[in-house]
């Protein structure tokens, strides 16, 4: 078995205590939530913290509730399993519930947290390897080295955003609430990402993600998530597609949104989704979808295909991942229109 480097583990019982511990530790401190991302990364010596602060015993980080303004407030330590199964989330944020239901496998979903998935490190086949492997490679841009491997002659780290929850949360206008020694900060998830595989988040040292707020979605909100992967469980996405359709009482789309991920360092919003789909009528969720809606959707799928350029950053056939963009965009919107989903191969 691989050994994790030695570190001190702190198990504070209040947020204040955790913030103080992290502030004191500085860059050598790290946070552990469910540990499903951090532990393998520690064993691969991608991180070598001297202090790891567990958030497991901090009550403020747990729980899913509806706020007085109708928005959904989710504690960052909520398990992915609870996100997938919670009735409020399923009703108000179906794309998020679906995305959570497809993360990893059942055991990992019971340990892994929503906050942990949002803050997931970017992934790359040249990076998520043991120290020995990376040493034999001559290391890489993201960790311990200066060489670029994904495309010969490349110069920028393109490790892929691989968190299924992120695109769903983007379509839901989620806000991330952080606390640190400097106080409380709230950021729209749209503005949280950086197009840099080395570190793709505007996340400062010592900041703890406390909760996520999802504004109230209208009654006709529909959402779905599509995930491409080789196996029916465990694997990170080769492509993730989140779709949003808000349909008014006339049956007309009032808002549409499309975010794809697992292609590049940050999730990508296909901005034309609204322009193409708003004003169309999807038609009967139980019957045949309307021809005009399907035609607009085909146009959106073509557009998404043009905009997406997967690289050989994560394992898997990049050409196939690209070919699947329009298929998954179409299928995921169809699922949303039908109040179905998730889109998955099982």
């Amino acid at each position: 078995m691989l050994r994790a480097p030695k570190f001190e583990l702190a198990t504070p019982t209040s947020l204040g205590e955790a913030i103080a511990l992290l502030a004191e530790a500085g860059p050598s401190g790290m946070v552990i939530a469910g540990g499903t991302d951090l532990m393998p990364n520690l064993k691969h010596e991608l991180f070598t913290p001297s202090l790891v602060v567990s958030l497991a015993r901090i009550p403020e980080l747990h729980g899913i509730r509806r706020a007085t303004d109708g928005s959904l407030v989710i504690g960052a330590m909520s398990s992915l399993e609870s996100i997938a199964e919670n009735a409020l989330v399923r009703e108000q944020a179906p794309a998020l519930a679906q995305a959570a239901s497809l993360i990893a496998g059942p055991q990992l979903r019971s340990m892994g947290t929503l906050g942990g998935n949002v803050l997931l490190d970017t992934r790359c086949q040249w990076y998520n390897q043991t120290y020995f492997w990376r040493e034999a490679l001559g290391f890489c841009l993201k960790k311990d080295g200066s060489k670029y491997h994904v495309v010969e002659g490349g110069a920028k780290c393109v490790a892929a955003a691989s968190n299924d929850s992120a695109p769903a949360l983007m379509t839901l206008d989620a806000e991330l609430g952080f606390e640190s020694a400097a106080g409380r900060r709230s950021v729209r998830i749209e503005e949280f990402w950086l197009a840099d595989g080395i570190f793709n988040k505007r996340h400062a040292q010592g900041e703890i993600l406390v909760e996520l707020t999802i504004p109230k979605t209208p009654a006709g909100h529909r959402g779905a998530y599509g995930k491409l992967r080789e196996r029916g469980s465990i694997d990170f996405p080769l492509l993730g597609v989140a779709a949003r359709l808000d349909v008014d009482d006339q049956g007309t789309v009032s808002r549409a949104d499309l975010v794809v991920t697992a292609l590049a360092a940050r999730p990508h919003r296909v901005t034309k989704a609204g322009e193409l789909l708003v004003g169309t009528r999807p038609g009967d969720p139980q019957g045949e979808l309307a021809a005009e809606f399907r035609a607009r959707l085909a146009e959106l799928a073509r557009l998404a295909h043009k905009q997406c350029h997967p690289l050989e950053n994560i394992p898997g056939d990049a050409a196939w991942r690209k070919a699947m963009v329009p298929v998954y965009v179409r299928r995921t919107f169809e699922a949303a229109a039908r109040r179905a989903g998730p889109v998955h191969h099982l």
Partner: protein
Amino acid sequence: MAARDIHGPAPPWGDEFRVVGKPTRKLDGLAKATGAAIYTDDIQLPGMLHAKTLRSTQAHARIRSIDTRAARALKGVHGVITGADLPIRYGVIPWTQDENALAVDKVRFIGDPVAAVAAVDEDTANAALKLIRVEYEPLHAYFDPREAAARHDPAIHEGRKEGNVSKHVRLEFGPVDELAAAADVVLEDEYSFHGSTHAPIEPHCAVATCSADGLLTVWSATQITHYVHRALAQVLEHPPQKIRVIQPCLGGAFGGKSDPFSLEFCVAKLAMLTGRPVKMLYTREEVFYAHRGRHPMSLKYRTAAGRDGRITSVDAKILIDGGSYSSFGLVTTYYAGQLLTGPYDFPSYRFDSTRVFTNKPPCGPKRGHGSVQPRFAFEVQLDQLAEKLELDPIELRRRNFQGERTRTVNGQRITSNGFLACLDQVERASGWKSKRGQMPFGRGVGVAGSMYISGTNYPVYPNKMPQAGVQLKVDRSGLVTVFTGGNDIGQGSNSMCAMIVAEELGVPLEHVRVVAADTDLCPVDLGAYSSRVTFMVGNATIDACRKLRSQIVSAVARVWQCAPERVRLMPGVVIDLEDPARSLSTAAAFQCAEEHFDTLGSTGSYNTPTLGGDYRGGTIGASPAYSFTAHVVEASVDTETGRITVHDVWCAHDCGRALNPMLVAGQIEGSVYMGIAEALLEEHRVNRLGLHAGPSLLDYRLPTSVDTPELHALIVESLDPEGPYGAKEAGEGPLHSSIPALSNAIFDAVGIRMKHLPFTPGRVLELLGEKSEREARARGGVETGGRV
């Protein structure tokens, strides 16, 4: 072969079997399920050190120097060894010993072992590895077998006149070209098979201790204790009488634990040097470097046949990527050709197989050693033949059936052969007749057949001693202990021995204990490989039982003053057939025999008859009995994503007689799971820089339970004349034809031929695109199809 080696398919007591043939749980099932079973890594000895291996970061390089001074100076480090400490080479095949426990002078793949450290704990050993300085002089590295076949400088193994060719075999039987020239139809095509690995759940592990008087004991997760024993004696130059090798409970092997491995020598050497017990457990990544998995092969086949579908000529040319060492490669190169000559009869056959070295983890025997790849190519080609002749693929296979009690074109003796029954069963169970060509576009069924060996008469080191030995000890309490060198690697061979003893001696199953795979206690057996254990150890167990049985019967007959024919050993009781009032408990009968014959015990053994063709290599692949298999796979293809879904696999396997139907079904299901896994998901790939593309269970995609189709195990019993009660193998044969049956099902579903493994969705889309272009051209249209 001595008379002792054939016991016939009948029950020992005439009328019916009382234990054999009944679905029975494994002896160690409860211990494994409760966590009580002791695996090698569970062993903790007082003062035990932990060892780790430093591995090569270079794919091909000369070692200029190794500086271990800083590692030795680290507190807690007790021993550091390099190739200089273990200079003697080894290898499972005596003629191709090209491995060192730790690299001597050069390294041949990324992951090749270079040095080993023993320290007070794993962290200290790992820290010491980072202090070892190795200076390499890089050499040109070979990742493409075609290049290795053509270029010999630099040589991966120096001083061989064949350069980078590890083994070449060309054998020809009958007028191959003449019959092809005269045939009604000739099919010629190319196929390829990628690399895959065993991925046993238990990583390799070994523990060694050496007593003050030089007794070296090694516990190892091996499937061949006897070869480890021999190799340790050779490499350590330690007398074999002073070495004891024990295989504890084992967590899967599938061929991947058949070779002697670096860690066994390293723990032994470090234990001898430090005077303390030493353990080494491979990480999952290291298991991928130890490898010995399925050889990647490029295969060309030309099959000729008459209009009636009868095959007249088969010609094969195969290039095999062996990786960096020989391992079992000599045998692989033969098996790639020798094991194709059934269940079909053809009058002429030629194969030309070349195995080359490349700078990758060494390949070796994986479940269906050497013959899974050719079987894939050939069975797809048979489907192409059926298509061309517009024959039902099952009918084509029936027409070419070789029959029972016959000889193959390459001189192998066929005894029992239940292949027709296998075809009948899968045809019926799958609903073949109402499905083939009749389901909606996108869904299809495919068939394939195969055969495999039940051990071979070719021991890896030449000798005329028995291939399997068993010893029985009888206790006055009624307990019988079986001592066998046979390795139970999870397949249940210990349970098989116990069932035979219970059947033969009339003792309840729970009164039989099995002590296995301990070289001090057990007679030699050649180990768990080539599907030999049930056949050979089973026969040896019957042999031992019958000797003991005749003593018990004659002692009781003497007391009862009756003819021995009247004494019958029933479960727990010995009865007089003609006087039901007279009986003894089994324990009392044992005591009676002990009074008369003194301490009771017996030995039994098995050796193969003389087999094989009269030509060089003619004994390789010669088996005392062959198993036969047929698969039908039902699959569908999503033509938009290219994704293949396997719904059902029906596998009918002729295992001669199912001694324990529960374990036979388990072997069939496990084999099919493994076959479909390597067809669709698993890939052992080395990237352009020589690094394993994903040496972890995240990136090496073993199917999970949700990825696994419905498996239908159908048992066919042909009652082999020489197997124990008629039994043959069931552990490897049922893998073979699952893969071509899937390819053939995809053809039935969407009309494309999957000739290259693995069957990825990207490849499916490419072929669908080519197909729709072809069809558009044929219609004279300008439509484009394929990838969206």
